[in-house]
């Protein structure tokens, strides 16, 4: 064994505290060490070249770098090893900067002693290091996208266009998500349905996308490159091919149900189509409300259907398929304003939430009246956001702008409308947002800085009196309004929970799904091959949701386009000669990477799936026999390090 040791000065960062010479001399005394050098900047091009040449010239087969933290420059030196033709895992770093010269600059002598010890620890470990190979695994080009809001749609289209097979699963009868409900979109005021519906119809038109609406993911097992998915498809009882969308079934149905698409402000029947822009554009029979199919209690709709598209004898169907990567785009729900009872939502008839107002305005544009909105209108911001009383600390990011939009749209439809927006802070960080805000101010929308404390309904006139301090003039406003709109915040979609449970993705403290790194891996999760797109990761507007969706698609493509990928090389392995198949490790593995397999002689053996294993070592820590060992952290290595440390 020929170990080379490199001690770095880090341009004085280390050498000003640690006596480099002493470290060098101490390292020379260690067995198997054939070369010890120091250098002022090992990570620089010069330093790296020095190492490269030495490895060749002195035929080093293992290397110790005493420098900074392995978390800082570890990758750099591993790359040097690879360039030199050595395995990157026969390199060890002794962290004599963060852990010596910086943490103990007041104790130079002790820092030097410690640097020597850390170097010795690294040497003792590297001696026992064996090359680790990253397994190369084949990976195909199949993706599961869960949730077909704008984010899910965008990701699917990007992937489909790039030639990847997409399974798009949406729990509702139509795709489109919340965007399909919006009137117009800030700050450009494009009609939401007009820009969304072409994208929606692109989905079934794309030959690479297999769309499953009215469906839920039931289980996912496996791993990157091999996720086995089971989807439960609810029957719609209407054959989408035969259904001509004539709507003849609707008037005959005796059942009225609040229409979700209009946020309950209008009614639909038990057989219905979600909206004019629904995709797939086909009717759905809603068994939760239909008088009953089993036994059949009514068959009016079937009798009315001339296309003979309605078939009551259908059952939920399970569809199984395998994908390589997964994108989750299950979106958001709006905050339930009933949880802030002081605003009287659900109690006072003229209090609406913003999504209801989107529908009112949207329908008005089509000539349908969902509700009578008076002249004097107040919008209340931050309802269900930035509020510790209900455990929601975060800002929902879109409500300042959508309130501005709603105000403008109302003002435009009737300039005599008197509109006030009660806000805490106006957050207009996006492109064109401040300009949009300014336009609203110009059009006469009043922005009043003060958080509304409560609303009182006049029992006779049903007008609404707000109590609020205008914190800029420091006076109270107590004024009656015809209509109040609550700018409700965004919260994690309830549908996300099911998928979260299946995949065991973690949540951040706000309840949205947690990205792998807030800056550098904003659409990745900690599960390999699983990505996030859109509001499932946190509140955002449409452009951000779309950008993230494309990013998620690109990240997924990045993995799949290689045709193969490298699995984590630090994994657990089981010594078959010792393992008794006691099964303790099996349940411990957080990634279900271990199975207990019956051998031909009836005994059992733990088998680690190296693809699933993320190398935590929990199993090795718990194994009662020492049969389970973690590569790179073998018990003999840990012992050797302890020995050197003490």
């Amino acid at each position, binding site marked *: 064994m020929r170990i080379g040791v490199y001690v770095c000065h880090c341009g004085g960062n280390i050498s000003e505290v640690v006596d480099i010479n002493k470290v060098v001399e101490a390292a020379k005394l260690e067995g198997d060490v054939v070369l010890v050098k120091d250098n002022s900047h090992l990570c620089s091009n010069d330093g790296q070249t020095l190492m490269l040449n030495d490895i060749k010239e002195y035929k080093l087969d293992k290397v110790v770098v005493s420098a900074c933290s392995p978390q800082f420059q570890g990758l750099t030196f591993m790359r040097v090893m690879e360039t030199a033709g050595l395995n990157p895992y026969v390199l060890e770093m002794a962290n004599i900067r963060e852990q010596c010269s910086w943490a103990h600059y007041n104790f130079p002598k002790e820092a030097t002693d410690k640097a020597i010890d850390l170097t010795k620890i690294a040497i003792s470990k590297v001696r026992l290091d064996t090359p680790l190979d990253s397994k190369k695994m084949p990976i195909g080009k199949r993706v599961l996208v869960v949730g077909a809001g704008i984010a899910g749609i965008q990701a699917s289209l990007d992937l489909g266009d790039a030639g990847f097979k997409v399974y798009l699963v949406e729990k509702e009868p139509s795709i489109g998500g919340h965007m399909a409900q919006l009137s117009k979109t800030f700050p450009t005021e494009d009609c939401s349905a007009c820009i969304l519906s072409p994208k929606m119809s692109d989905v079934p038109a794309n030959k690479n996308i297999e769309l499953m609406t009215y469906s839920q993911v039931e289980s996912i097992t496996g791993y990157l490159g091999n996720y086995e998915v089971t989807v439960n498809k609810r029957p719609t009882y209407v054959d989408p091919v035969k259904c001509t969308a004539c709507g003849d079934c609707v008037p005959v149905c005796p059942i009225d149900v609040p229409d979700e698409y209009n946020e309950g402000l209008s009614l639909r029947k038990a057989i219905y189509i979600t909206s004019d822009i629904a995709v797939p554009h086909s009717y759905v029979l809603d068994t939760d409300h239909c008088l009953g199919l089993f036994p059949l209690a009514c068959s009016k709709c079937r009798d009315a259907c001339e296309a003979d598209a309605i078939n009551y004898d259908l059952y939920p169907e399970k569809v199984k398929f395998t994908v390589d990567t997964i994108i989750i785009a299950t979106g958001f729900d709006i905050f339930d304003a009933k949880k802030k*009872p002081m605003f009287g939502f659900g109690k006072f008839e003229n209090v609406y939430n913003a999504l209801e107002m989107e529908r009112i305005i949207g329908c008005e544009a089509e000539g349908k009246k969902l509700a009578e909105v008076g002249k004097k209108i107040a919008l209340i911001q931050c309802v269900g956001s930035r509020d510790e009383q209900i455990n929601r600390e975060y800002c929902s990011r879109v409500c300042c702008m959508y309130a501005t939009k709603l105000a403008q749209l109302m003002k435009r439809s009737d300039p005599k409308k008197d509109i006030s927006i009660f806000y805490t802070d106006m957050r207009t960080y996006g492109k064109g947002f401040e300009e949009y805000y300014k336009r609203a101010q110009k059009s006469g929308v009043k922005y009043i800085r003060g958080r509304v404390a409560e609303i*009182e*309904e006049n029992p006779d006139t049903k007008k609404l009196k707000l109590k609020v301090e205008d914190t800029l003039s420091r006076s109270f406003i107590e004024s009656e309004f015809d209509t109040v709109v609550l700018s409700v915040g965004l919260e994690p979609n309830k549908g996300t929970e099911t998928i979260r449970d299946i995949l065991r993705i973690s949540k951040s403290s706000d309840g949205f799904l947690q990205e792998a790194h807030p800056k550098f891996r904003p659409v990745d999760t900690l599960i390999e091959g699983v990505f996030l797109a859109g509001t499932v990761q946190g509140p955002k507007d449409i452009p951000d949701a779309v950008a993230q969706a494309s990013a998620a698609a690109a990240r997924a493509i990045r993995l799949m386009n290689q045709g193969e990928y490298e699995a984590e090389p630090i994994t657990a392995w089981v010594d078959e000669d010792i393992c008794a198949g006691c099964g303790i490790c099996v349940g411990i593995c957080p990634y279900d990477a271990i199975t207990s397999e019956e051998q031909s002689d009836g005994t059992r053996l733990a088998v680690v799936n190296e693809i699933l294993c993320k190398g935590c070592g929990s199993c090795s820590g718990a194994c009662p026999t020492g049969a389970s060992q973690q590569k790179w952290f073998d018990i003999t290595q840990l012992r050797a390090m302890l020995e050197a440390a003490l």
Partner: protein
Amino acid sequence: MKKIPYYPGCTLKTTGKNFEDSAIATAKVLGLKLLEIDRWNCCGTVTSLTQDDLIHHIASVRNFIRVQEMNERGEVDDYRLLTLCSMCYNTLKSVSNVMQERPDDLDKINNFMDREEDYKGGVTVVHLLELIREMGFDEIKSKVKKSLGKLKVSPYYGCTLLRPKEVALDDPEVPTIMEDLLNAIGVDVIDSPKKSMCCGSYQTVRNPKTVVRLGYEIIESARKRGAEALVTSCPLCAFNLDDRQKEIKLEHPDFERMPVFYFTQLTALAFGLKKDVNNFDLNFTDPRPLLKKKKI
């Protein structure tokens, strides 16, 4: 009969005697004996809100020690301390919480009171309304002998039963406990948005004007929605909303007086208890004409 330690507080022995008598009688019907704790002292009314002010907590702690002793002697069946007055409830309960959360401060207090046995903690404070809820409102319903159906009353919670959150006996924003009770005894319950608005509390001493304004708002808001009387559980609210009606009348000559009941007076009526437990003489606005009008 279940015996529970009971803390009356100063006012229930004087202007609030009608509250105490009707409450004790009501409790009896429900199988509860309120055992007045001996040597009780002021609860320290209004909890200290500064971090370092421990001295004022002592008053409450001493009452807890009495509860502790009664339990050690086996005189009562409950480690909880029952109150009727909302204000005492609020003070005692906050102190009980503080002692639970800050054991170091409890140590300090124990060290300070060298003539007292140490308070070991663990005494919790309940309001009679909570005990009633615990028994179940159906139980109440089963005890009703007399119909009060024609009476339109609006419950008035005020502050101290509902705020802050840590001492609240119900949801601070949408309380229902009094409504549930009143429904159970069969009165016609009128909801008012001002039912948990502050009556001005002790400001009545220094700033009666404010109290008059608030009282007027509270009463008129209830009246507008059809109420003929208010119901409360606090002798201070009763004073501010009832006795101060004199001043309201001076300010608003059109104002008509509205009786204010303690909730226990209504339960006593519904349970058909003897008239004297209600002692309506002590109600500032005599409710008897109203009751008579409603044939109760």
